[in-house]
Protein backbone atom coordinates (compact mmCIF):
# COMPACT_ATOMS: atom_id res chain seq x y z
CA UNK A 1 0.00 0.00 0.00
CA UNK A 2 1.83 3.03 -1.27
CA UNK A 3 -0.59 5.43 0.40
CA UNK A 4 0.64 4.18 3.82
CA UNK A 5 4.23 4.94 2.72
CA UNK A 6 3.26 8.42 1.59
CA UNK A 7 1.29 9.16 4.78
CA UNK A 8 4.25 7.85 6.82
CA UNK A 9 6.70 10.09 4.98
CA UNK A 10 4.28 13.00 5.42
CA UNK A 11 3.85 12.45 9.19
CA UNK A 12 7.57 11.98 9.85
CA UNK A 13 8.40 15.05 7.78
CA UNK A 14 5.73 17.12 9.55
CA UNK A 15 7.05 16.18 13.01
CA UNK A 16 10.64 16.88 11.93
CA UNK A 17 9.69 20.21 10.41
CA UNK A 18 7.81 21.26 13.55
CA UNK A 19 10.92 20.49 15.65
CA UNK A 20 13.26 22.10 13.10
CA UNK A 21 11.15 25.27 12.89
CA UNK A 22 12.02 26.08 16.51
CA UNK A 23 15.70 25.08 16.35
CA UNK A 24 16.75 25.78 12.71
CA UNK A 25 13.95 27.48 10.76
CA UNK A 26 16.14 27.79 7.61
CA UNK A 27 16.44 23.97 7.34
CA UNK A 28 12.70 23.50 7.95
CA UNK A 29 11.86 25.04 4.57
CA UNK A 30 14.38 22.81 2.79
CA UNK A 31 12.97 19.73 4.52
CA UNK A 32 9.49 20.75 3.39
CA UNK A 33 10.67 21.10 -0.23
CA UNK A 34 12.45 17.74 -0.16
CA UNK A 35 9.38 16.02 1.32
CA UNK A 36 7.18 17.49 -1.41
CA UNK A 37 9.57 16.35 -4.14
CA UNK A 38 9.90 12.82 -2.64
CA UNK A 39 6.11 12.39 -2.45
CA UNK A 40 5.75 13.68 -6.00
CA UNK A 41 8.47 11.30 -7.25
CA UNK A 42 6.68 8.35 -5.60
CA UNK A 43 3.51 9.31 -7.46
CA UNK A 44 5.19 10.20 -10.77
CA UNK A 45 5.37 6.63 -12.10
CA UNK A 46 1.67 6.05 -11.34
CA UNK A 47 0.75 9.36 -12.93
CA UNK A 48 2.71 8.43 -16.08
CA UNK A 49 0.81 5.13 -16.25
CA UNK A 50 -2.56 6.91 -15.92
CA UNK A 51 -1.62 9.41 -18.64
CA UNK A 52 -0.46 6.56 -20.94
CA UNK A 53 -3.76 4.69 -20.48
CA UNK A 54 -5.77 7.86 -21.10
CA UNK A 55 -3.64 8.53 -24.20
CA UNK A 56 -4.36 5.09 -25.62
CA UNK A 57 -8.12 5.57 -25.02
CA UNK A 58 -7.96 9.00 -26.67
CA UNK A 59 -6.44 7.28 -29.73
CA UNK A 60 -9.12 4.59 -29.68
CA UNK A 61 -11.90 7.18 -29.45
CA UNK A 62 -10.25 9.08 -32.33
CA UNK A 63 -10.09 12.31 -30.37
CA UNK A 64 -7.60 14.70 -31.92
CA UNK A 65 -4.30 14.35 -29.97
CA UNK A 66 -3.93 18.13 -29.86
CA UNK A 67 -6.84 18.36 -27.34
CA UNK A 68 -5.21 15.75 -25.12
CA UNK A 69 -1.76 17.34 -25.31
CA UNK A 70 -3.06 20.85 -24.58
CA UNK A 71 -5.16 19.81 -21.59
CA UNK A 72 -2.27 17.79 -20.14
CA UNK A 73 0.17 20.68 -20.61
CA UNK A 74 -2.20 23.10 -18.88
CA UNK A 75 -2.79 20.65 -16.01
CA UNK A 76 0.95 20.11 -15.55
CA UNK A 77 1.67 23.83 -15.47
CA UNK A 78 -1.16 24.41 -12.98
CA UNK A 79 0.18 21.64 -10.74
CA UNK A 80 3.80 22.81 -10.80
CA UNK A 81 2.80 26.45 -10.23
CA UNK A 82 0.63 25.50 -7.24
CA UNK A 83 3.41 23.30 -5.84
CA UNK A 84 5.95 26.12 -6.08
CA UNK A 85 3.55 28.72 -4.70
CA UNK A 86 2.64 26.54 -1.70
CA UNK A 87 6.33 26.00 -0.83
CA UNK A 88 6.88 29.76 -0.90
CA UNK A 89 3.75 30.31 1.19
CA UNK A 90 5.01 27.77 3.77
CA UNK A 91 8.29 29.65 3.96
CA UNK A 92 6.33 32.85 4.65
CA UNK A 93 7.14 34.43 1.27
CA UNK A 94 3.60 35.09 0.11
CA UNK A 95 4.75 37.83 -2.30
CA UNK A 96 6.95 35.38 -4.25
CA UNK A 97 4.15 32.78 -4.08
CA UNK A 98 1.74 35.20 -5.75
CA UNK A 99 4.35 35.92 -8.47
CA UNK A 100 4.69 32.18 -9.16
CA UNK A 101 0.90 31.92 -9.38
CA UNK A 102 0.87 34.87 -11.78
CA UNK A 103 3.53 33.18 -13.94
CA UNK A 104 1.44 30.00 -13.98
CA UNK A 105 -1.67 31.95 -14.98
CA UNK A 106 0.16 33.79 -17.76
CA UNK A 107 1.63 30.58 -19.21
CA UNK A 108 -1.75 28.83 -19.03
CA UNK A 109 -3.32 31.84 -20.78
CA UNK A 110 -0.66 31.65 -23.51
CA UNK A 111 -1.63 28.01 -24.08
CA UNK A 112 -5.38 28.69 -23.81
CA UNK A 113 -5.52 31.74 -26.11
CA UNK A 114 -5.03 29.73 -29.35
CA UNK A 115 -7.87 27.40 -28.25
CA UNK A 116 -10.16 30.36 -27.53
CA UNK A 117 -9.25 32.08 -30.81
CA UNK A 118 -9.90 28.85 -32.73
CA UNK A 119 -13.32 28.66 -31.09
CA UNK A 120 -13.98 32.22 -32.25
CA UNK A 121 -12.89 31.18 -35.76
CA UNK A 122 -15.29 28.25 -35.53
CA UNK A 123 -18.18 30.54 -34.52
CA UNK A 124 -17.36 32.89 -37.39
CA UNK A 125 -17.34 29.89 -39.74
CA UNK A 126 -20.79 28.82 -38.54
CA UNK A 127 -22.27 32.29 -39.02
CA UNK A 128 -23.81 32.67 -42.49
Amino acid at each position, binding site marked *: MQIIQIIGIGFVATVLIIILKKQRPEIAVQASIVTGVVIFMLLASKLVAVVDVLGSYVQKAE*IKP*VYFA*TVLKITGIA*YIAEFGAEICNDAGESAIASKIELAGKVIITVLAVP*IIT*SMLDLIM*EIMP
Partner: protein
Amino acid sequence: MTDFIKQWIINIVALVLFIVIVEMLLPKGKMKKYVSIATGTIMIITIVNPLLELSGKDFSFVEAQTAGSNMISKIEIENNSKLMEQEQMEQIIQVYRADMIEQIEHNAKEVDGVREAKADIIINEDSQSEDFGTIRRAYLIITLEEDGDGSLGIPEIESINVVKIGKVGKLGKINRSQAADTDCPHEIKRQLQERISSVFGVSGENIVISKKTR
Protein backbone atom coordinates in the same frame (compact mmCIF):
# COMPACT_ATOMS: atom_id res chain seq x y z
CA MET B 1 -25.00 8.84 -40.80
CA THR B 2 -25.25 6.36 -37.93
CA ASP B 3 -21.45 6.01 -37.90
CA PHE B 4 -21.09 9.76 -37.84
CA ILE B 5 -23.42 10.12 -34.82
CA LYS B 6 -21.73 7.18 -33.11
CA GLN B 7 -18.27 8.73 -33.54
CA TRP B 8 -19.55 12.09 -32.39
CA ILE B 9 -21.04 10.65 -29.17
CA ILE B 10 -17.88 8.61 -28.49
CA ASN B 11 -15.79 11.73 -28.95
CA ILE B 12 -17.90 13.76 -26.55
CA VAL B 13 -18.12 11.04 -23.89
CA ALA B 14 -14.38 10.24 -24.05
CA LEU B 15 -13.44 13.90 -23.79
CA VAL B 16 -15.86 14.49 -20.89
CA LEU B 17 -14.35 11.55 -19.01
CA PHE B 18 -10.84 12.74 -19.75
CA ILE B 19 -11.65 16.26 -18.53
CA VAL B 20 -13.31 14.88 -15.37
CA ILE B 21 -10.15 12.86 -14.58
CA VAL B 22 -7.95 15.88 -15.23
CA GLU B 23 -10.10 18.07 -12.98
CA MET B 24 -9.89 15.42 -10.25
CA LEU B 25 -6.10 15.59 -10.43
CA LEU B 26 -6.02 19.38 -10.41
CA PRO B 27 -4.98 21.20 -7.24
CA LYS B 28 -7.83 23.03 -5.55
CA GLY B 29 -6.08 26.40 -5.73
CA LYS B 30 -6.59 29.46 -7.91
CA MET B 31 -5.46 27.69 -11.09
CA LYS B 32 -8.57 25.54 -11.42
CA LYS B 33 -10.71 28.17 -13.14
CA TYR B 34 -8.01 28.85 -15.75
CA VAL B 35 -7.81 25.16 -16.61
CA SER B 36 -11.62 25.02 -16.71
CA ILE B 37 -11.70 27.77 -19.38
CA ALA B 38 -9.39 25.74 -21.63
CA THR B 39 -11.16 22.42 -21.08
CA GLY B 40 -14.59 24.02 -21.52
CA THR B 41 -13.54 25.63 -24.80
CA ILE B 42 -12.17 22.32 -26.11
CA MET B 43 -15.49 20.69 -25.12
CA ILE B 44 -17.50 23.30 -27.06
CA ILE B 45 -15.27 22.84 -30.13
CA THR B 46 -15.70 19.05 -29.95
CA ILE B 47 -19.48 19.40 -29.79
CA VAL B 48 -19.82 22.01 -32.53
CA ASN B 49 -17.12 20.92 -35.01
CA PRO B 50 -18.94 17.80 -36.36
CA LEU B 51 -22.04 19.92 -37.04
CA LEU B 52 -19.92 22.13 -39.22
CA GLU B 53 -18.57 19.11 -41.10
CA LEU B 54 -22.14 17.92 -41.59
CA SER B 55 -23.12 21.23 -43.17
CA GLY B 56 -20.25 20.85 -45.66
CA LYS B 57 -18.00 23.57 -44.21
CA ASP B 58 -14.51 22.53 -43.32
CA PHE B 59 -12.85 23.82 -40.16
CA SER B 60 -9.56 22.46 -38.88
CA PHE B 61 -9.10 23.05 -35.17
CA VAL B 62 -5.46 21.97 -35.36
CA GLU B 63 -4.71 24.53 -38.07
CA ALA B 64 -6.52 27.30 -36.18
CA GLN B 65 -4.71 26.45 -32.96
CA THR B 66 -1.34 26.28 -34.70
CA ALA B 67 -2.00 29.65 -36.34
CA GLY B 68 -2.89 31.16 -32.94
CA SER B 69 0.22 29.68 -31.28
CA ASN B 70 2.41 30.86 -34.12
CA MET B 71 1.03 34.37 -33.84
CA ILE B 72 1.78 34.49 -30.08
CA SER B 73 5.27 33.02 -30.66
CA LYS B 74 5.94 35.53 -33.45
CA ILE B 75 4.98 38.50 -31.25
CA GLU B 76 7.08 37.11 -28.39
CA ILE B 77 10.12 36.60 -30.65
CA GLU B 78 9.72 40.10 -32.11
CA ASN B 79 9.64 41.65 -28.63
CA ASN B 80 12.63 39.58 -27.49
CA SER B 81 14.62 40.47 -30.60
CA LYS B 82 13.92 44.17 -30.03
CA LEU B 83 15.22 43.86 -26.46
CA MET B 84 18.26 41.89 -27.63
CA GLU B 85 18.97 44.45 -30.34
CA GLN B 86 18.86 47.23 -27.73
CA GLU B 87 21.19 45.31 -25.40
CA GLN B 88 23.53 44.52 -28.28
CA MET B 89 23.62 48.21 -29.28
CA GLU B 90 24.47 49.21 -25.69
CA GLN B 91 27.29 46.66 -25.64
CA ILE B 92 28.59 47.87 -29.01
CA ILE B 93 28.58 51.47 -27.73
CA GLN B 94 30.47 50.43 -24.58
CA VAL B 95 33.13 48.54 -26.54
CA TYR B 96 33.44 51.36 -29.10
CA ARG B 97 33.74 53.97 -26.35
CA ALA B 98 36.43 51.97 -24.50
CA ASP B 99 38.32 51.52 -27.77
CA MET B 100 38.11 55.24 -28.59
CA ILE B 101 39.31 56.19 -25.10
CA GLU B 102 42.25 53.81 -25.45
CA GLN B 103 43.16 55.26 -28.84
CA ILE B 104 42.93 58.85 -27.58
CA GLU B 105 45.16 57.98 -24.61
CA HIS B 106 47.62 56.23 -26.91
CA ASN B 107 47.72 59.22 -29.29
CA ALA B 108 48.13 61.64 -26.41
CA LYS B 109 51.10 59.70 -25.05
CA GLU B 110 52.86 60.02 -28.41
CA VAL B 111 53.02 63.79 -28.02
CA ASP B 112 56.42 64.92 -26.70
CA GLY B 113 56.35 65.84 -23.04
CA VAL B 114 53.31 63.73 -22.13
CA ARG B 115 54.04 60.77 -19.89
CA GLU B 116 50.57 59.59 -18.92
CA ALA B 117 47.10 60.38 -20.25
CA LYS B 118 43.62 59.57 -19.03
CA ALA B 119 40.75 60.24 -21.40
CA ASP B 120 36.99 60.35 -21.25
CA ILE B 121 34.60 61.00 -24.11
CA ILE B 122 31.00 61.86 -24.80
CA ILE B 123 29.78 60.17 -27.98
CA ASN B 124 26.57 60.38 -29.98
CA GLU B 125 24.66 57.28 -28.81
CA ASP B 126 21.60 57.76 -31.01
CA SER B 127 21.78 54.82 -33.42
CA GLN B 128 19.18 56.41 -35.74
CA SER B 129 21.30 59.51 -36.22
CA GLU B 130 23.70 59.92 -39.16
CA ASP B 131 26.41 61.07 -36.72
CA PHE B 132 26.10 57.90 -34.63
CA GLY B 133 29.36 57.18 -32.87
CA THR B 134 30.98 60.58 -33.45
CA ILE B 135 32.82 62.06 -30.50
CA ARG B 136 31.00 65.16 -29.21
CA ARG B 137 33.43 66.08 -26.46
CA ALA B 138 36.72 64.69 -25.24
CA TYR B 139 38.29 65.23 -21.82
CA LEU B 140 41.98 64.55 -21.37
CA ILE B 141 43.93 64.60 -18.13
CA ILE B 142 47.66 64.42 -18.73
CA THR B 143 50.77 63.93 -16.61
CA LEU B 144 53.82 65.71 -17.98
CA GLU B 145 57.30 64.17 -18.07
CA GLU B 146 58.82 67.12 -16.25
CA ASP B 147 56.57 66.34 -13.24
CA GLY B 148 58.51 63.12 -12.43
CA ASP B 149 56.87 59.82 -11.57
CA GLY B 150 55.93 60.83 -8.07
CA SER B 151 57.02 57.49 -6.68
CA LEU B 152 60.63 58.33 -5.88
CA GLY B 153 61.94 61.00 -3.54
CA ILE B 154 59.85 63.57 -1.70
CA PRO B 155 56.98 64.83 -3.80
CA GLU B 156 56.85 68.53 -4.47
CA ILE B 157 54.39 70.31 -2.21
CA GLU B 158 51.93 72.34 -4.16
CA SER B 159 51.37 75.94 -3.22
CA ILE B 160 48.00 76.67 -1.70
CA ASN B 161 46.01 79.47 -3.25
CA VAL B 162 44.36 82.10 -1.10
CA VAL B 163 40.74 81.17 -0.52
CA LYS B 164 38.53 84.22 -0.45
CA ILE B 165 35.50 83.44 1.62
CA GLY B 166 32.29 84.92 0.27
CA LYS B 167 33.47 85.00 -3.36
CA VAL B 168 32.46 81.47 -4.27
CA GLY B 169 30.25 82.72 -7.10
CA LYS B 170 33.22 84.26 -8.92
CA LEU B 171 35.40 81.19 -8.49
CA GLY B 172 32.54 78.98 -9.61
CA LYS B 173 32.47 80.76 -12.96
CA ILE B 174 35.84 79.32 -13.96
CA ASN B 175 35.09 76.54 -16.39
CA ARG B 176 37.16 73.50 -17.22
CA SER B 177 38.71 74.91 -20.37
CA GLN B 178 39.89 78.03 -18.52
CA ALA B 179 41.36 75.83 -15.83
CA ALA B 180 43.12 73.83 -18.51
CA ASP B 181 44.65 77.00 -19.93
CA THR B 182 46.34 77.77 -16.66
CA ASP B 183 47.29 74.16 -15.92
CA CYS B 184 48.66 72.82 -19.16
CA PRO B 185 51.61 74.20 -21.18
CA HIS B 186 50.28 75.94 -24.26
CA GLU B 187 52.45 74.13 -26.82
CA ILE B 188 51.62 70.62 -25.56
CA LYS B 189 47.95 71.54 -25.41
CA ARG B 190 48.03 72.79 -29.01
CA GLN B 191 49.78 69.63 -30.21
CA LEU B 192 47.30 67.40 -28.39
CA GLN B 193 44.31 69.31 -29.76
CA GLU B 194 45.68 69.16 -33.31
CA ARG B 195 46.40 65.46 -33.08
CA ILE B 196 43.03 64.49 -31.58
CA SER B 197 41.21 66.81 -34.01
CA SER B 198 42.89 65.30 -37.06
CA VAL B 199 42.62 61.67 -35.96
CA PHE B 200 39.15 61.62 -34.38
CA GLY B 201 37.48 64.60 -36.08
CA VAL B 202 36.68 66.46 -32.86
CA SER B 203 36.76 70.24 -33.08
CA GLY B 204 39.37 72.00 -30.90
CA GLU B 205 36.84 73.69 -28.59
CA ASN B 206 35.37 70.29 -27.71
CA ILE B 207 38.68 68.94 -26.44
CA VAL B 208 39.23 69.78 -22.79
CA ILE B 209 42.79 69.19 -21.63
CA SER B 210 43.95 69.54 -18.08
CA LYS B 211 47.04 68.64 -16.13
CA LYS B 212 46.82 66.00 -13.43
CA THR B 213 47.15 67.42 -9.96
CA ARG B 214 48.84 65.30 -7.33
